[in-house]
């Protein structure tokens, strides 16, 4: 089995709102995917559709080769951690960790215990008394320790501090290396996760804008910085994604450059720097460039 998820012409309408609009893509087995996009872009709806929590208006979804809706065989291999995951109010974190193994065949209690210590999560406090960050860490721990073959994290770290987020990234990578599985991570903190992601899906207004290997995507654009005249001369008719300038200096983001073009730029005294994934996505989602949509 090579693709864990196959989505064809998937749409979900809420009244007149197209939350997900004719989206098709596949997700390869054992890779970490980033599902990126602005608020209300349709990320959560898409993940709810993939996990059978939401019903599609049209199109098909296949998880491990089968439709997910009400399919226990498929769904018991998934774990979906939502930003706003609600827990039974009278539960304490220890009740969550007591019940989770009943539902996840690959649950690793030792790993969970280690994460609990890492996140300094109080086990005996009632859920309603926990801080936002502590609540998020419960989800993160369940998502990691469940080792579900297909794990969804939807903005898993609301309220988590930078240290805790780093722990999450580190543990995810570590554990993923030992127990490869398919992870789909939706987040706003694109730069923080950019080294984690192997593949990027960008969704905007329900449409799939970018579906690319993270490495390819990173090479898709370059910042060219130098004297305004030199920069302008260099870019010529090239496609410009973004333009900035102060006085005589100019900084322009252009689509990927070939080796010879890079040499030309250096010869012209221009400085080249990679564009961060976050910058790139901001620029791509802002620009309505047809080429970028077409290649997506």
């Amino acid at each position: 089995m090579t693709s864990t998820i196959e989505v064809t012409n998937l749409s979900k309408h809420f009244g007149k709102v197209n939350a997900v609009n004719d989206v098709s893509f596949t997700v390869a087995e054992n890779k970490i995917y980033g599902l990126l996009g602005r608020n209300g872009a349709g990320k959560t709806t898409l993940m709810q559709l993939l996990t059978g929590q939401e019903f599609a208006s049209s199109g098909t979804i296949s998880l491990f080769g089968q439709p997910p809706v009400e399919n226990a065989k498929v769904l018991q291999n998934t774990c979906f951690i939502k930003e706003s995951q609600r827990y039974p109010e009278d539960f304490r974190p220890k009740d969550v960790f007591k019940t989770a193994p009943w539902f996840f065949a690959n649950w690793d209690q030792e790993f969970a215990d280690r994460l609990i210590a890492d996140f300094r999560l109080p086990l005996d406090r009632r859920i309603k008394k926990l801080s936002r960050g502590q609540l998020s860490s419960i989800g993160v721990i369940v998502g990691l320790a469940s080792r579900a073959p297909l794990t969804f994290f939807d903005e898993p770290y609301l309220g988590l501090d930078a240290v805790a987020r780093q722990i999450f990234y580190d543990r995810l990578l570590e554990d993923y290396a030992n127990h490869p599985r398919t992870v789909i991570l939706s987040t706003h903190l694109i730069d923080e996760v950019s080294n984690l992601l192997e593949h990027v899906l960008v969704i905007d207004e329900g449409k799939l804008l970018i579906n690319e290997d993270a490495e390819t995507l990173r090479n898709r654009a370059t910042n060219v910085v130098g004297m305004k005249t030199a920069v302008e001369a260099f870019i010529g008719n090239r496609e410009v994604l973004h333009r900035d300038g102060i006085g005589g200096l100019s900084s322009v983001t252009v689509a990927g450059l070939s080796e010879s073009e890079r040499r030309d730029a250096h010869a012209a005294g221009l400085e080249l720097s990679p564009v961060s994934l976050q910058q790139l996505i901001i620029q791509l989602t802002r620009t309505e460039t047809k080429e970028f949509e077409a290649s997506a």
Partner: protein
Amino acid sequence: MTTTTALAQPASPLKRITNVAKLHFANPWTTLGLPWIILGVIFVGSLTIWWLIYSALSPEQREGALEGTEFGGSSFFIFIYMMVVAIQAISITFPFALGYGVTRRDYYLGSTLAFVALAVIYTTGLTVLGAIEKATDGWGMGGTMFAPIYFGESAPERIFVTFVLFLFFLFFGSAIAAVWVRWKATGVTVFFIIVGALLVGLIALTTFTDSWGAVGATLVDLGVLGVAAWSLVLTAMSGVAGFVLLRRATPRNAA
């Protein structure tokens, strides 16, 4: 060692369902703790009042003084509370369980199992307390709380009536919860307007056709057992409605 995370062996349907049922008891405070505590408080309160009355009376007046408590409804709260328990249990664990990859079908069947278990547990509790009450001649004072007259006259009757009543309130509660999960407050409001309209309609129908006498006679004919048995029809309807509604429900973020 690097191993690809293997797909889980499908858990047996029964296992999946019992896991959901266990979920409702994972923290037994709401389902088992609080109701007994409240019932205990009411019981102690009643005992105190009975004792006050009892001790204010002369020995010859005491005979039959608390007979009226046979018609008391102090343990009725527990039935209503079971409806609340069912509503809470479903509205809170539904989105939780679906995140764990549970199907709606398994979730509902598991919850049904949990509710039947709750009905058994509470029926047992009330039966035991009712038996003690009878054996001690109303806690030594002729008071009645756990075995009021309308639960039936013999122990088997009381067991049947309480069990059936618990089932009714739990499943009516789960139907309301399903409406809540599916359509939130708007849905529940509409639901109660419809239920209210149906009741008023029935009352109007009975009044206009001048058949209150007949209704009364039928109820007397049916007796406590008959009425309780007929409630099973409503219970089954609630159970099926809850299943149908929840089958198409989506866990939403809004509380």
